[in-house]
């Protein structure tokens, strides 16, 4: 109540604020107009035909054009206005300023013409920030549209409203977001998730309130919403990991069906989540390894079990769930999705499983150049740590002459990382081609790569060195220079045997002009001057001559060489050295002057500094560590793969660190979903009857009278199938979560998948349950009654039992439940039993399955106490807020009534001629569906008109995808002339689209289709006229 009041106060405040704002805006408009006209007068003399970059010119031009446009906008003709708006938007698109037209444009915000309206919206969003006061004029239009019965109009109103970056309307936006977050249409809820981010960037103070909305939207079961809300979560409160716990499994299960952009966001969020919640699957000793592991873990399930025996580490089933559910996405056509799955595996999967992403990453190399660039960068980082992953695909990294430069160098990088003793000869042969490339930058890169191979693989060091020496006679300067530098590095590693190479280089010295190369040769001379005692002083002599014309880097090396020679061979070089030091002393570059002074003090003995010069020899000619040639991508692994930060190798703003694995896994049970979220009570229903029936937590009134009798009716006709219904309820639950994902649509049939999906669905059964609840509210009718009765059953009679069961089995570890899933078979009773025992481990599930069962046993139903739901995750304040929403006060008066008339007419489903003797008829019994609240129950009578028994009658493939059918149990045998009546539940998704499925016998399958009349989708309710008006 408090909350309620608080909220309405807030609202009136907001309304007040807007009112004042509007008034001031109106005044402002007036003043602005006069100003404008003055300005216009002032500027009209300017006649420019095009807007130049110059500010005044643009303005002059604009004003002139704007005069026309303004006239057009103010005309009465739609077509003129439209034309004008098109030109205005054209101006915006070209980046020209059209802000002066604001008053004229904003008047058209309420236009009837959709295109015009859209263009006005475009304009508004662009300029509202600059013309805040005027923008307020449009707000009331949007506020009205927010209440529109059409969901698309509501959504677009919210979209534009939230895009208007005017701080004064923050309260209005907040209100609109909250309202939209509980809208019945998932599309509107999606828009509200987007609006959250916009509001947050406008006003960070709203954070706490927004988090509450995010929390609520995270619970949403719609695939439309999931991606957007996770995006909002990442933007607003990425550190509130605790909000994810309860939704983790749901997100994993929904992932396949989320739109591709949402998938990217969700996967990256789940990667971070998993790193905080699960323990590392990586073995302590990195050697424990790929071969023997791979052989023995055939399937995922087995793997977990074996590991339990072998090692203390056991993968959390939720961890496994994530890996399993992301794997199919590797086949996505969206490269960003593939990359994000790849990075997820890289960061989360056991080492031996990471390689499944290889093929997909290599596939991406066929994509656009920019995609290649990013993927290659990531592969470069990966290949440093795990050569084995990409070695089989080495040839995919061969360079083509048509590749862009940055692609070439990345490929080179990867080839170098992949090189090992076995493939080095192939790679070197390939490198030989590259060195000859016309692209000299690339050739130089290749030489460096050869150098790296030579240091990494000692077998080929000599070969490489010889090859590089040959390159010294190359005609291209860059190639020679690069070779010199690389040779220098190589020689440093093993200096002993190579004095002839040094001599050779000394000979080449005159022809080399690249400073770096010259410097390298000089350094080599100095360092190994004792090996080339004759040549070195001669080189120094030459250098003394050309000292002044050298580059700085060369000069420094000349000074170095002089110093070293002075120390080793002072007889020959004393004068030369002094000459050079003198030259250096007066050099323009202070580095060189400093160096010269230092060297002089160090080597030329005098009185003051005797102490150091004693050690000069040791200082200058100390053995130096050889440089390590390593990849530029070596330390990129500190960034999460696939991120912008990884690409630019610096931390981008907003980069979220990937935490290290926790040593001890945090409580796993946090992910169990125990509470029936009150959200579902709030989420108003969707679809045709939506408006007339915004559901609320008013169960008490709801079922008291009419519910009762419907239940009775259902009992009567449904009893024949009650046995089937209960035994298969577990499977229905499973499909509850799965059915949405079309890929898993026939999981129950294909045995290969069944054991996979069973464990998954076990986990998700809780979700599917609550999903049902959610859907119930979304869907019209019929079902309304069922769910609450279930609740009663559990709270009244079975409540105690359930709780007991909970506590007794609370100790059962989740490992049990995991391994159980293996033995999960299709046999009905077995499954059911297992199901129950397993579910005990998770309290929530237990409660649910109990419900399903009790539903059919209980004769009397009393309403569930509302209070039970209130004690929920939602913060009281939000609850209060929500209560304040206008929708809520109506809903309490809705009463369900039984169908007034049930037609006897049945429709042909399958004619006996087409069905080869099997005929089927269906009718709508107009009862709430037992299986899921969103389903419509359909009664099917099957008759065998042949003279032999038909075996194994069941429902096979169905379409469209995602069609949720609760099948009847397979009829093992139908005798000739016998007939049987079965019930199925079909989720028509509130559409009149036909449900197509196959009716299968042992030998045949027949495609059949059920098209519901719209009336069959509705649920009758009773309401007063007053209420009806209100809802409208």
């Amino acid at each position: 109540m408090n909350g309620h009041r608080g909220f309405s106060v807030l609202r009136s405040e907001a309304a007040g604020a807007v009112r004042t704002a509007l008034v001031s805006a109106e005044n402002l408009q007036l003043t602005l107009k006069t100003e404008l006209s003055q300005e216009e007068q002032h500027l009209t003399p300017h006649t420019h035909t095009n807007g130049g970059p110059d500010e005044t010119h643009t303005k002059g031009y604009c004003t002139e054009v704007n005069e026309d446009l303004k006239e057009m906008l103010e005309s009465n003709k739609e077509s003129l206005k439209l034309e004008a708006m098109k030109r205005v938007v054209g101006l915006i698109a070209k980046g020209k300023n059209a802000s002066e037209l604001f008053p004229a444009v904003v008047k058209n915000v309420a236009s009837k013409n959709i295109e015009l309206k859209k263009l006005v919206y475009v304009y508004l969003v662009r300029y509202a920030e600059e013309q805040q006061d005027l923008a307020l004029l449009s707000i009331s239009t949007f506020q009205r549209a927010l209440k529109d019965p059409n969901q698309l109009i509501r959504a677009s109103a919210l979209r534009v409203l939230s895009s208007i970056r005017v701080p004064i309307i923050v309260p209005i936006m907040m209100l609109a977001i909250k309202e939209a977050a509980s809208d019945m249409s998932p599309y509107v809820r999606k828009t509200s998730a987007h609006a959250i981010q916009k509001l947050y960037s406008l006003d960070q103070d709203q954070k706490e309130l927004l988090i509450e909305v995010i929390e609520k939207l995270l619970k949403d079961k719609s695939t439309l919403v999931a991606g957007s809300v996770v995006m909002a979560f990442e933007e607003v409160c990425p550190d509130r990991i605790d909000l994810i716990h309860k939704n983790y499994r749901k997100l994993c299960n929904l992932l396949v069906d989320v739109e591709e952009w949402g998938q990217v966001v969700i996967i990256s969020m789940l990667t971070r989540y998993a790193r905080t919640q699960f323990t590392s699957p990586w073995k302590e000793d990195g050697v424990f390894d790929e071969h023997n592991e791979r052989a023995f873990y055939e399937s995922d399930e087995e793997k977990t079990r074996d590991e339990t025996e072998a090692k203390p580490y056991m993968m959390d089933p939720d961890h496994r769930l994530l890996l399993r559910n992301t794997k199919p996405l590797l086949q996505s056509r969206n490269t960003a999705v593939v990359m994000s799955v790849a990075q997820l595996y890289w960061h989360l999967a056991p080492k031996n499983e990471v390689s499944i992403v290889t093929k997909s990453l290599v596939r991406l190399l066929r994509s656009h150049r920019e995609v290649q660039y990013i993927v290659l960068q990531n592969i470069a980082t990966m290949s440093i740590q795990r050569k084995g992953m990409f070695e089989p695909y080495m040839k995919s990294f061969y360079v083509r002459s048509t590749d862009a430069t940055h692609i070439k160098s990345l490929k080179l990088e990867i080839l170098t990382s992949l090189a090992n003793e076995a493939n080095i000869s192939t790679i070197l042969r390939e490198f030989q081609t590259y060195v000859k490339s016309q692209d000299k930058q690339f050739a130089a890169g290749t030489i460096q790569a050869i150098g790296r191979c030579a240091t990494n693989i000692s077998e080929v060091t000599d070969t490489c060195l010889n090859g590089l020496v040959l390159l010294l006679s190359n005609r291209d300067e860059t190639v020679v220079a690069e070779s010199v530098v690389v040779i220098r590095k190589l020689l440093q590693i093993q200096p002993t045997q190579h004095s002839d190479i040094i001599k050779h280089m000394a000979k080449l010295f005159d022809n080399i002009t690249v400073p770096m190369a010259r410097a390298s040769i000089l350094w080599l001379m100095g360092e190994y001057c004792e090996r080339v005692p004759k040549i070195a002083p001669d080189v120094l002599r030459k250098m003394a001559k050309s000292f002044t014309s050298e580059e700085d880097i060369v000069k420094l090396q000349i000074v170095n060489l002089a110093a070293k020679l002075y120390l080793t061979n002072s007889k020959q070089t004393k004068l030369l050295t002094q000459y050079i030091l003198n030259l250096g002393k007066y050099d323009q570059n202070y580095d060189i002057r400093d160096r010269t002074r230092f060297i002089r003090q160090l080597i030329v003995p005098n009185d003051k500094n005797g102490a150091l010069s004693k050690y000069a020899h040791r200082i200058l000619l100390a053995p130096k560590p050889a440089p390590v040639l390593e990849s530029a991508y070596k330390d990129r692994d500190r960034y999460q793969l696939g991120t912008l930060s990884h690409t630019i190798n610096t931390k981008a703003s907003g980069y979220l660190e990937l935490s290290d694995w926790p040593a001890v896994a945090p409580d796993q049970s946090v992910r169990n979903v125990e509470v029936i979220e009150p959200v579902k009570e709030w989420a108003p229903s969707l679809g045709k009857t939506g408006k007339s029936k915004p559901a609320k937590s008013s169960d008490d009134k709801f079922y008291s009278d009419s519910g009762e009798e419907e239940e009775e009716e259902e009992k009567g006709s449904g009893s024949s199938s009650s046995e089937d219904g209960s035994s298969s309820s577990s499977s229905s639950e499973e499909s509850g979560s799965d059915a949405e994902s079309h890929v898993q649509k026939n999981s129950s049939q294909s045995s290969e998948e069944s054991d996979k999906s069973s464990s998954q669905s076990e986990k998700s059964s809780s979700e599917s349950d609550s999903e049902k609840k959610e859907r119930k509210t979304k869907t019209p009718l019929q079902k309304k009654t069922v769910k609450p009765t279930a609740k009663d059953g559990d709270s009244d009679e079975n409540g105690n039992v359930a709780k007991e069961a909970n506590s007794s089995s609370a100790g059962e570890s989740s490992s049990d439940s995991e391994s159980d899933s293996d033995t999960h078979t299709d046999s009905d009773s077995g499954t059911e039993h297992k199901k129950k025992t397993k579910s005990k481990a998770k309290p929530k599930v237990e409660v649910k399955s109990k419900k399903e069962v009790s539903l059919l046993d209980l004769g009397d139903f009393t309403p569930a106490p509302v209070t039970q739901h209130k004690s929920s995750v939602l913060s009281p304040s939000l609850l209060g807020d929500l209560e304040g929403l206008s929708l809520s006060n109506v809903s309490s008066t809705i009463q369900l009534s039984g169908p007034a008339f049930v037609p006897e007419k049945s429709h042909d489903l399958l004619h006996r001629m087409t069905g080869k003797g099997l005929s089927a008829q269906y009718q709508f019994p107009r009862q709430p569906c037992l299986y899921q609240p969103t389903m419509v129950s359909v009664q099917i009578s099957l008759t065998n008109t042949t003279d032999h028994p038909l075996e194994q009658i069941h429902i096979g493939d169905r379409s469209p995808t995602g069609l949720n059918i609760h099948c009847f149990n397979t009829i093992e045998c139908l005798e000739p002339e016998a007939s049987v009546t079965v019930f199925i539940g079909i989720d028509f998704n509130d559409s009149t689209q036909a449900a197509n499925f196959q009716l299968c016998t042992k030998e045949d399958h027949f495609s059949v289709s059920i098209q519901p009349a719209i009336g069959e989708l509705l649920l009758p309710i009773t309401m007063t006229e007053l209420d009806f008006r209100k809802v409208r």
Partner: protein
Amino acid sequence: MINSLFLINPSGEMFLEKHWKSVVSRSVCDYFLEAKEKALEPEDVPPVIHTPHHYLISIYRDKLFFLSVIQTEVPPLFVIEFLHRVAEMIQDYFGECSETVVKDHMVMVYELLEEMLDNGFPLATESNVLKEMIRPPTILRSVVNTLTGTSNVGDTLLTGQLSTIPWRRAGVRYTNNEAYFDVVEEIDAILDQSGTTVFAEIQGVVEACVKLSGMPDLTLSFMNPRLLDDVSFHPCVRYKLWESERVLSFIPPDGNFTLMTYHVNAQNLVAIPVYVKQSISFFECGSDGRLDVTVGPKQTMGKTVEGVMVTVHLPKTILSINLTATQGSYTYDNGTKLLVWDIGKLNPQKLPNLRGSLSLQAGAPKPEENPSLNIDLKIQQLAISGLKVNRLDMFGEKYKPFKGVKYITKAGKFQVRT
């Protein structure tokens, strides 16, 4: 996420800008233009540029730069993929993606961009959904529009975004129901001087053009699905069914789309349909060289090789060339040093040959590497990997559709080193 988008032509003019959050000044593009100046070719501009306050991610496509401005961490591929979708969308709507087309349809492109992103996060990228909101222009419609004053913006309320299958719109009706599939395979290969294969692989794609009424549910199966090593699918394909039964089961989008792309098992040897005999040599002393190229059919599985084209990037030091072709014609651009020899159909009896002399700029040293040849070719009615479509079944609708499958083999990145 994505803050702004700029379309920039090769000369550096920004001719369209769109902001989804606060307006970012154009001057941010200067960093990009700077990088563009530095790069020799437009392809060499780095896709990701780091500036003090923003990150610029760009793609170069169809002679246009699509530059997006980013402010916070976001997977770069996310942005790149989206930018390519924008380009594809323009292509899809107006038949081509070029500066003129965008300038002609400025407002419509702008409206499309508005629908594609909300606050920088992709909202509607499915072409089917977009086309429902904003109808693509046709000549007829533009005439009607000018006469009646109606517009291209859909006035019906769209449902595509709301449905569980966003890629297909409801209520599709055709008088002729037809479904065509093109299996297009590309050979990527690198041959070395002696003609031995350094590297070869086959990449395939199944392009579909489906015009079927209602909600058809199609199943496409292959004779030899084992050939396929790695696949990626349009979101409509049910992955689990592919996993278990190796069939493609899907409710197709309406119109043209890419159903799947695949990579053929690497173990299978790739048949190379043509061989190239070439010799390009430069004389040590004079500033002269010779070029002699012959192309002939190799493993063509009895089909004719068509559309053969040889492209050579000659060294920069070439002054002029003087060649004669026995078949087809050649063009040479002295500015870019690009030699294109368009051969056409390959006749096994009379092998096409191109020979003649090259003259170098006076005093220029002999180029030490010979240019590599890029080969283009086409073979109709053949999928070089041997992949065959077995059958196409339709469920869910009553009518009988026309069905057709076409096979084409093309050269992908087919390069001969010399």
